[in-house]
């Protein structure tokens, strides 16, 4: 989903090529302030509860200067860095999904009326979000959710309103975490599109700078307000090199070649039993996954029975009730639920929406309490396909 303004900007800039501007940390603060002045709720990384979280912030001083977050299978540790980097980590548990497709929201409220019922008009104003520090994987994830909610037979109006109002400041990734595998998914470490502004942070002894580029007219306009100078060629090259190093330094990878067919074929593979022995069916992976979109719907009424509401909440294919139909649940065993998740994400998703549902952000690896690693499970299934009938 692209705003009309964005498309115009892309066309308009085609000839001029993207200009790279130089921003100081102070200028970044001005950028954030400008977003707040425009009435945006600015969502940015900040330290909270011993972790880096993406939350509403009111100033650049709330960003996690000098922090990093070490991610490994089943672990996530907040640590100090030796410098004052503002984006010296990659992802937290939350992604754009938490704001564009929130964990719970009211679908409608209704009231009994003359023997029937009527839907009450929505009073609340829709939030306008500006996202600061969005990683390339999460931009790719948002594009996937756009496909689900906006480009099918039906459109999710709430999602569309939030999405169209959003302003995105992306940050290219120069220091991937151990759990990252975006390079193999083709989604990072450089953001290709889907941002209004993209930043590369350069932190070296003696200098701390950002190279900024506009992706849309709105982004260019905002950058123009900052009176930034053109980034020197040397700095742009340094930024490029940092991104190349980032891509080649990623240790994890997921080989997607022929994976759809392979997963459909390995439906009965004994390896699913092996995963099932470890999987707790806690649903963490689906909650932190930036593309997982499943929801349930709950209808409630007040004690008088005069007023009713419908709420939509995130749901997970790891719960037993998820597949319940009259007579029982279709997927009773943990094995079948893990298989459903992985096969949906990497195979059925391709049939349904034209791309896999994984962007290589690695969240499901870090936030799995027992450290199940999607890249390893795929590798194990590949190995099984190679060695077993």
């Amino acid at each position, binding site marked *: 989903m692209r705003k009309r303004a964005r498309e115009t900007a892309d066309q308009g800039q085609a000839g001029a090529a993207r200009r790279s501007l130089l921003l100081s940390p102070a200028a970044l603060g001005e950028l954030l302030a400008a977003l707040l002045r425009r009435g945006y709720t600015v969502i940015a990384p900040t330290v909270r509860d011993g972790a880096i979280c993406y939350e509403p912030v009111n100033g650049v001083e709330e960003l996690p200067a000098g922090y990093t977050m070490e991610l490994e299978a089943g672990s996530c540790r907040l640590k100090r860095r030796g410098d004052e980097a503002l984006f010296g980590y990659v992802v937290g548990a939350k992604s754009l999904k938490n704001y564009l497709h929130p964990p719970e929201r009211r679908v409608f409220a209704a009231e009994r009326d003359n023997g*029937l019922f009527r839907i009450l008009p929505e009073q609340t104003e829709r939030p306008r979000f500006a996202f600061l520090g969005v990683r390339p994987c999460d931009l790719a994830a948002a594009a996937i959710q756009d496909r689900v909610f906006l480009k099918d037979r*039906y459109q999710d*109006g*709430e999602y569309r309103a939030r999405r169209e109002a959003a302003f995105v400041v992306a940050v290219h990734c120069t220091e991937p975490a151990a759990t990252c595998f975006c390079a193999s998914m083709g989604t990072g470490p450089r953001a290709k599109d889907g941002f209004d502004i993209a930043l590369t942070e350069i932190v070296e002894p003696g200098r701390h700078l950002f190279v900024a580029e506009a992706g849309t007219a709105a982004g260019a306009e905002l950058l123009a307000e900052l009176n930034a100078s053109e980034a020197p060629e040397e700095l742009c090259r340094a930024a490029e090199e940092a991104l190349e190093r980032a891509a080649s330094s990623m240790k994890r990878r997921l080989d997607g070649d022929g994976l759809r067919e392979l997963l*459909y074929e390995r439906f009965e593979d004994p390896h699913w039993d092996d995963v099932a022995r470890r999987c707790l069916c806690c649903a963490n992976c689906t909650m932190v996954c930036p593309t997982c979109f499943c*929801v349930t719907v709950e*209808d409630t009424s007040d004690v008088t029975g005069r007023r*009713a509401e419908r709420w939509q909440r995130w749901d997970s294919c790891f719960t037993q009730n998820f597949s319940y139909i009259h007579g029982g649940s279709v997927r009773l065993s943990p094995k079948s639920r893990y*298989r*459903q998740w992985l096969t949906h994400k990497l195979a059925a998703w391709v049939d349904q929406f034209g791309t896999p549902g994984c962007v290589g952000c690695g969240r499901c690896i870090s936030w799995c309490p027992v450290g199940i690693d999607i890249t390893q499970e795929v590798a194990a299934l590949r190995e099984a396909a190679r060695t077993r009938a």
Partner: protein
Amino acid sequence: MSAASETLPSVMVPVAMRLARVEKETHDTFTLTLESADGERPARFAPGQFSMLYVFGVGELPISISGNPEERDRLIYTVRSVGKATHALVTRAPGEAIGVRGPFGTSWPLADSRGRDIVIVAGGIGLAPLRPAIYHVLRHRGDYGRLLVLYGARSPQDLLFRKQLTAWNYVPDTQILITVDYGGLSWRGNVGVVTTLFRHIRLEPERTTALVCGPEIMMRYVVRELLVRGVSAEDIYLSMERNMKCAVGFCGHCQLGPYFVCKDGPVFPYSRLKAWMDRYEL
């Protein structure tokens, strides 16, 4: 994909309709007739499609439309009371409101089956989504070859639409065969599962389109009979059931392999299902 895609929240918000009539079909199954509350005609539906029916403050669930598609002023549903939401639905009194979203999903391939024999195989409540197809064929009787309806139920007391079934049997080129799994002394009809009826019909596989709805186990065995008798997988259509919360492809619950039952189904040609149907815990 439709040209103008429909937008939430409207597609997630039910329209209040008035419950005009509740007819008891069997001890646990009821037919509900809904009429417009605001004078607006309900949206046209195709046989095989379903709606999401909402009981105020209680819940919402997918229910197949069982009425005549030509009767444009009302919507008719046949509901079996098996849980909290279905119980709430069938215990509403006439005059009360029922929320309706839809119709949703794919329909029986009636337009593409003109000139062919239509073989309908139904089990239990599975006859409900097939009744609109029967209405359609009977209304356009000359457009189709023979109409065969094979219907199985648990017991004689569980048979739906008995008077209609009896009457339809007198329509030319139309044969209605009924069987029950358990019969008492007063039941002089067939006893035995629905698949046993195949021995008593003459199928011309080349010109047969089969429409099947019932419990999944029943459908698997019916498909086997049809295939053995030479009907091709492309000409066998099944209506599938899965958990459903939204009916528009957003909630993810109704997935069946690569499909969403709500928008890719509920009616599928067996040729698209055969790779998935026998997979346990899919």
